[in-house]
């Protein structure tokens, strides 16, 4: 079970704070594995049909919200609606909308989710609310 900020993600975090590439693109995968900081890809990233390994990630809506101190949290909200059947086992934030491109900022495998992986059929959706909070 693991969820990590990747090695590349550290640099992206700094870039985002400075107005650079923003890691607001959400992708999901169907493969097995434990997330590690050295990872640069999802486990078997797929498009919304849960089969095809190419396509487009979902552009999230990013905002600066408050958890403890004013504006201390970077938040991305994105909804992905499945057009096919499959099981989502991992999710990640990227700085690029195209599957197979860009740098991965953070990654989480389903062993760290309450309830584990999520089996979807066409028409089901997941709204991801991902927060990066200082402190």
């Amino acid at each position: 079970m693991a969820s990590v900020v990747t090695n590349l993600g550290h640099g992206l975090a700094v870039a985002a704070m400075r107005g650079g590439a923003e890691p607001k693109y959400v992708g999901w995968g169907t493969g097995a594995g434990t997330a590690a900081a050295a990872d640069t890809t999802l486990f078997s990233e797929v498009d919304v049909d849960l089969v095809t390994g190419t396509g487009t990630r979902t552009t999230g809506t990013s905002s600066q919200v408050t958890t403890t101190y004013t504006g201390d949290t970077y938040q991305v909200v994105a909804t992905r609606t499945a057009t096919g059947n499959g099981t989502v086992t991992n999710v990640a934030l990227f700085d690029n909308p195209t599957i197979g491109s860009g740098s991965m900022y953070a990654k989480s495998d389903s062993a760290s989710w309450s309830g584990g992986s999520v089996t979807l059929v066409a028409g089901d959706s997941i709204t991801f609310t991902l927060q990066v909070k200082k402190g």
Partner: protein
Amino acid sequence: MDETIRIAENVTLVGTLTIRRGPEWLAANGYPPDAEVIETRETILGVVELPVVPGGPHYSEGD
């Protein structure tokens, strides 16, 4: 003058997955087509330390 500036001491990643079931799932599981079935899953994605970057913006507790 201290030229070493911290970006952040650490960050916590938190995630919520809100799953909404569609018509195909509802039919297969005996729900009426207009039913709203929502599951929520939460996760602590991890606590990590960001690198100290000389010359970067300064953040400290209470900023």
